[in-house]
């Protein structure tokens, strides 16, 4: 019967957010829910909000979190991303841990040239030292863009290419992030910082070639 717990896990694998705003070593603590706020440079100057709760899967505490994020700019709702993420540790309860996260989300963006909506598969691993109140770890994150729906704007069709095809395109690339993650717990509050470099899956630097996100999360 234990195996039945892995069914929702498998179904949720394609759902994820990008950045965890709380400390993963909290999973065994009595507080089961958190709300978080993140701000920093991550595909733009971005604000993110998260909600998460610890759920038991196969007898292990797993963090299920949902995120909405958007960059700053004149138009607030033309660019955003959403996601759902499952996070857990391969060595729970120990100082040296290997937390992993898996899931997927969607990215929405509209600009002068096109409207793009993508489905993304995400995977992260943050091996490092996790003390009771703080952690310092490596941060490796892979964002695979499984498919993108691209609708060229009237401007693009008029000024560039009238025959541009709108529709779904598969394998629209991917991104790798490589950096460090640190965190500190103060009572029910967590502060986290993730920073590093960002590149395409083939190693070409992103337009914004680095990321740095500071997060605040409160457990309840």
């Amino acid at each position: 019967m234990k195996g039945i717990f892995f069914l929702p896990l498998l179904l949720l694998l394609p759902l994820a957010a990008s950045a965890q705003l709380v400390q993963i070593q909290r999973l065994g603590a009595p507080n089961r829910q958190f709300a978080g706020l993140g701000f920093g440079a991550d595909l733009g100057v971005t604000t993110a909000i998260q909600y998460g709760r610890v759920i038991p899967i196969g007898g292990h505490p797993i963090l299920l979190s949902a995120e909405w994020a958007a960059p700053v700019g004149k138009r607030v709702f033309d660019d955003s991303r959403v996601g759902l993420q499952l996070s857990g540790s391969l060595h729970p309860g120990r100082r040296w841990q290997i937390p992993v996260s898996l899931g997927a989300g969607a990215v929405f963006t509209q600009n002068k040239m096109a409207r793009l909506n993508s489905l993304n598969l995400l995977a992260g691993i943050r091996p490092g030292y996790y003390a009771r109140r703080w952690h310092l770890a490596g941060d490796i994150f892979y964002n695979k863009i499984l498919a993108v729906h691209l609708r060229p704007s009237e401007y693009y069709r008029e000024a560039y290419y009238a025959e541009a095809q709108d529709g779904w395109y598969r394998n629209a690339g991917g991104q790798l992030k490589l950096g460090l993650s640190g965190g500190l717990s103060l009572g029910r509050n967590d502060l986290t910082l993730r920073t590093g470099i960002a590149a395409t899956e083939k190693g070409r630097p992103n337009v914004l070639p680095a990321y740095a996100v500071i997060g605040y999360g409160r457990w309840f």
Partner: protein
Amino acid sequence: MKQKHFWLIPVLVSTLAASCQKVETLSEPGLLVPKTVTENPALPSVFLNNTLFHAESFGDPTDPVILVLHGGPGADYRSMLPYKALADEGYYVVFWDQRGAGLSERQDKDAMTVDNYLKDLELVVEHYTQSDSQQLILFGHSWGAMYATLYINAHPERVSRAVLCEPAAFTSDELNDFVSKAYKLDFFAEGTNDITWADGALSADDHASLDFKQALAIESVSDHERNSSDNPVPHWRYGAVTSQFLPRSQPSFDWTTRLQEFPGKVLFIDGEWGTVHTLERQKMLATHYPDASVVTVQGAGHDVLYQRFDTCKNLIVNFLN
């Protein structure tokens, strides 16, 4: 009763699989950006210096040659095509998309060098002129006007006259000054985030995706050009590799060392509205040439050649006559 519908499962699975197979990748030619001359052999082309250029010409090949140099680097000559009307004025008008740009063949970044560009232009001149004595007029817009100056500085004796519309700089110092005024990085601007956020939805390293995003980047940070939004300047394709790697191939340059040897007249055309391509900048650049004049065209920005075609064409015809 439910068992009767089990046959639907393989049908649905097959339908889903079939529909997934129809989803294209962005690298398929012609879906996101137009096909280049290597992907569409019907396009007019010429093979020079180990690359296939998109090129066409109008008029009598024995007439004085006007060689049109588009902007960018990486853009194309689509917006300058109306100037084929100069053929009716007794000129042989030649258009070509520069190396890796527009509908010309894509090239690797290693081929994007200023030396290669100069060689390309030398061979284009050789290809489209009947003899060394045939009159040659260079007509460049923006980067194309800089490119024309590169050539004139190398071969001041070969060019008869030049029409230069809003070049940015002829030396690296001038270019650094221009860039510092034109592109102020604002992380909180909508345009900046439009460019960076697109990486989350489209991050492919294929040429079509890069070209598409290059056009997005250019369009998102060109407010200083004060181009008309009502009648946008037409392009075919922004060559991302050209745009990004050609400037890096020669970070320090001075294309003015022999300009004083140039015996011909030069006409600078300035659009009234430009905030960085200003009249003062054009006058400063004109001082590099011994015999140059600057004319401001009212009611247009950096896209003056396209938006004020009749005015500019008359200016050019009068200048050449």
